[in-house]
């Protein structure tokens, strides 16, 4: 179960409920905006994709509008990462804020076709968005909405996998020879963005760039960001002003231990590293840290980050679509090499060799994301890794060799 906290912008006024009447009563009619104005506003406040890759929305929109054929819009709420709940939460508590985005952009592009992709294993997400679309149809809005259900696997929400699903094929990644914005659904220019991204676009058009930017912490970080805070117990979805210091998001105790930022394809922040940083994609990137889709996983005092990483890599290896050879063979081998390290019988050289083998050798970013996680482990907690290589784990009783740990 996930808790959703009240937030400053997208998660404001949650007590209004998810209905269209309340949405309209509070915010009024959606302003008309032409394409140039939306591109300029998105560029001014640097709206970036919130699915993880962080691609500038303005560039995508401009590319998709220039291709000469009718643009297809896609709201991607598939959220394949099980640790992430922010898109599911948005869809359930403020579905009309998500839909404002495609509605205003469809009008600007003079197109009517919008696709919505939701996770089949979270049926409440699709149900909420369907109900919201029905309300808009009843109110006389005339877009053609099509719903699709993504399969319950990590890579199902990847852009090309979503296009495959929309085309009636298996919901798995294929090689992209051109950006979706140039040639996507049935070869048409396709503006495929994450549900949170669309909600930001809607809020931006309603507020205008200056008022939207003011929701950020300072001039450099306009707007807000959704986070899924996890670790022990239930996840919490929280919206924070962009540029909020991590010391205001996590406790001093949590910050004193390694924190996994950016989810399973993300990075380990060393103990204390986040204490001097803010919730800012660019600031974190400068330190080699990922914000990804906003998943933040803290560690219990007894949780060894090396063993935690092994469990995640085991999971990710199992989530390979098994279509690309280097991923199908390399990720299980990588998990095996990491298991050997955890068990105190492995070599880091083999781990590094496998990281080099899997990176940039697949149709999607699954192997790259997995490699990023493992590389960050090696740099963030070298003492813990060294301890395991020496047959010990500092998170267990210090006098007990690992080789006996499982036998007792």
């Amino acid at each position: 179960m996930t808790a959703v906290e009240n937030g400053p912008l997208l998660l404001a006024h949650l007590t209004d409920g998810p209905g269209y009447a309340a949405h309209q009563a509070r915010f009024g009619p959606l302003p008309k905006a032409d394409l140039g104005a939306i591109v300029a506003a998105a560029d001014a406040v640097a709206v970036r994709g919130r699915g993880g890759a962080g691609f500038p929305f303005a560039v995508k929109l401009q590319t998709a509008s220039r291709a000469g054929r009718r643009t297809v819009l896609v709201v991607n709420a598939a959220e394949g990462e099980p640790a992430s709940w922010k898109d599911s939460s948005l869809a359930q508590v403020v579905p009309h804020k998500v839909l404002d985005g495609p509605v205003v952009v469809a009008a600007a592009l003079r197109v009517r076709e919008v696709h919505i992709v939701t996770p089949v294993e979270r049926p409440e997400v699709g149900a909420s968005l369907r109900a919201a679309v029905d309300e808009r149809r009843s109110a006389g809005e005339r877009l053609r909405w099509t719903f699709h259900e993504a399969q319950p696997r990590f890579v199902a929400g990847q852009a090309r996998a979503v296009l495959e699903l929309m085309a009636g094929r298996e919901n798995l990644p294929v090689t992209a020879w051109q950006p979706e914005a140039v040639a996507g659904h049935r070869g048409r220019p396709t503006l495929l963005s994450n549900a949170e991204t669309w909600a930001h676009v809607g809020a931006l058009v309603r507020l205008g760039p200056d008022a939207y930017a003011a929701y950020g912490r300072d001039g450099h970080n306009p707007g807000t960001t959704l986070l899924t805070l996890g670790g022990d117990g239930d996840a919490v979805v929280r919206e924070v002003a962009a540029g909020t210091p991590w010391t205001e998001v996590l406790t001093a105790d949590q910050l004193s231990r390694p924190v996994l930022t950016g989810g399973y394809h993300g990075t380990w922040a060393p103990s204390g590293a986040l204490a001097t940083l803010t919730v800012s994609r660019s600031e974190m990137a400068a330190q080699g840290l990922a914000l990804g889709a906003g998943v933040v996983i803290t560690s219990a005092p007894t949780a060894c980050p090396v063993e935690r990483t092994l469990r995640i890599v085991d999971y990710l290896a199992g989530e390979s679509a098994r279509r690309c050879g280097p991923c199908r063979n390399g990720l299980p081998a990588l998990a095996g090499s990491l298991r050997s390290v955890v068990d105190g019988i492995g070599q880091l050289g083999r781990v590094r060799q496998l990281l080099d083998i899997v990176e940039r050798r697949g149709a999607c970013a699954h192997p790259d994301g997995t490699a990023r996680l493992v590389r960050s482990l090696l740099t963030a907690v070298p003492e813990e890794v060294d301890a395991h290589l020496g047959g010990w784990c500092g998170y267990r009783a210090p006098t007990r060799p690992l080789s006996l740990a499982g036998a007792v």
Partner: protein
Amino acid sequence: MTAQAPTAAQRRGVERTATLRVDWPLCEARGLCAELLPERVGLDEWGYPVVTGRVPERLLGLAREAVAACPRQALRLIQS
């Protein structure tokens, strides 16, 4: 290896190069690419191609042969 005469492009100071890209879901590690273009294609421990660097003009012909020879049509030469 004998020295080759510079091509027209090289004399102008610009060389036409290209990038080899693998269509990974199609590739089944048949390995012909590595046999035909060992200068740019190695194999990993499972027999899948490891492309090393861009294809210079002098290797473009061999690269095109490797693309054409792939039984899975999983190799493409992207001109740039």
